């Protein structure tokens, strides 16, 4: 009898997993983790930032995004400069988002479904419930047995595209020097620190 129940539970579990889309599951779990462990938790600010940084670097395909945001300049950049850029980029992005979490006032995220994009990528459509609902699309690519985030599109505005446009304009005015861009990103991160210390 016990075996029978276990078997039924196993069958039921497999249905439950199948009913839940794996891509939605990935984003849902990530959002939930960041919400409970970082945004709404009572931990110290530094600890929150470390937790968020780990979750962020784990979930986002930083190298892919870095290639995209540097555009044609990426190919001409040395491995060393690429790594330095990616570090500065991650630093600033983590600081930016950690700052934005202060604006959270209990909004819920609702998943609406997925769409297939080219090269096996998936769009996860979601809406953040607020006075005016905000449409958020998560662009994922398969990676091993899970996914990596390659872009987040908020109300039609792609993060990746926005960074790319921003950095392209900076690079154009700075002789396409990635190290100048890296230094500028580091300076922005330091500004964050001093401002938050006030």
């Amino acid at each position: 009898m016990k075996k029978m129940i276990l078997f039924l539970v196993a069958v039921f579990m497999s249905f439950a997993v199948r009913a839940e889309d794996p891509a939605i599951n990935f984003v849902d779990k990530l959002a939930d983790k960041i919400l409970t462990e970082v945004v709404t938790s009572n931990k110290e600010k530094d600890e929150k930032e470390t937790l968020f940084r780990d979750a962020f670097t784990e979930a986002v395909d930083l190298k892919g995004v870095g290639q995209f945001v540097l555009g044609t300049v990426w190919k001409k950049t040395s491995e060393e400069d690429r790594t330095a850029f990616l570090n500065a980029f991650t630093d600033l992005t983590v600081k930016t988002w950690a700052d934005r979490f202060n604006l959270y006032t209990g909004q819920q995220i609702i998943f609406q479904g997925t769409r297939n994009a080219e090269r096996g990528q998936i769009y996860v459509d979601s809406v953040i419930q607020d006075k005016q609902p905000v449409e958020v699309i998560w662009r994922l690519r398969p990676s091993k047995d899970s996914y990596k985030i390659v872009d987040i599109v908020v109300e039609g505005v792609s993060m990746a595209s926005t960074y790319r446009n921003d950095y392209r304009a900076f690079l154009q005015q700075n002789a396409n020097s990635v190290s100048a861009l890296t230094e500028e990103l580091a300076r922005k991160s330091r500004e964050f620190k001093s401002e938050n210390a006030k």
Partner: protein
Amino acid sequence: MGKKSFILFFCLFAVLSGCATRPTNPEELKAYEEVNDPLEPMNRGIHAFNQVADKIVLKPIAKGYRAVVPSFYRGWVSNFFDNLSQPVHFLNALLQGQLKDAGSSLGRFVTNTTFGLFGLFDVATEAGIPNPSNDFGQTLAKWGWDGDGGPFLMLPILGPSNVRDGIGTGVDAVAHPMGWALWNEQKLHYGLVGLDGVATRERALDLLDDLEKTSTDYYATLRTMSRQNRRKKINQVLNNKEDEKPDYEADFSDIEWED
């Protein structure tokens, strides 16, 4: 400076600052066409002007407004002006043949003007009526002027736009019921427009501070975000099918993924 001399100054500025030079390198040309900003020198000049005006006038007022007026009453102000612009949204929705949106705008206006006490309370949102906010830029797109709507324009005070949506903003402003209702009360009219402007700037405080703090080229960031967001709004009225969400511009086809 009168209105006429301001326009004259604006035109002179455009002529003197000239056009961006078209690059010859194919990669750069692609980027140049994507941002569609041949008037970049002029636009950057206006952006610099806007930043100064914002820093010394608009932002301090908006911050003062936030500090003095509690959030609850600021909500009243936002709701009131949002409700007053619903007739314009309604007309645009009709011109676009978006009957569902027209119904929402009309429904909002009727509900909020009556039960919401002249629009101070947004009971329509609580009743689940969406707020599609159709504008004349979208109407022009629906009538055939689709795509990016002509070159990018940085408007004085109003911020990023393009030729089509700039015209749209002008037409919507002329059509706004407040101007007609207060035809003989110009002082009150300008006062209310000013209050609406302050309230709008207050709502954008966090977002714009954030963007300015984190971007390496604030102008380029505003330009791309505005274009992408407008593209979404335009696509909304062009293909009305809800299941057919349009693609967006990030093209990852050249990226070499590593596992």
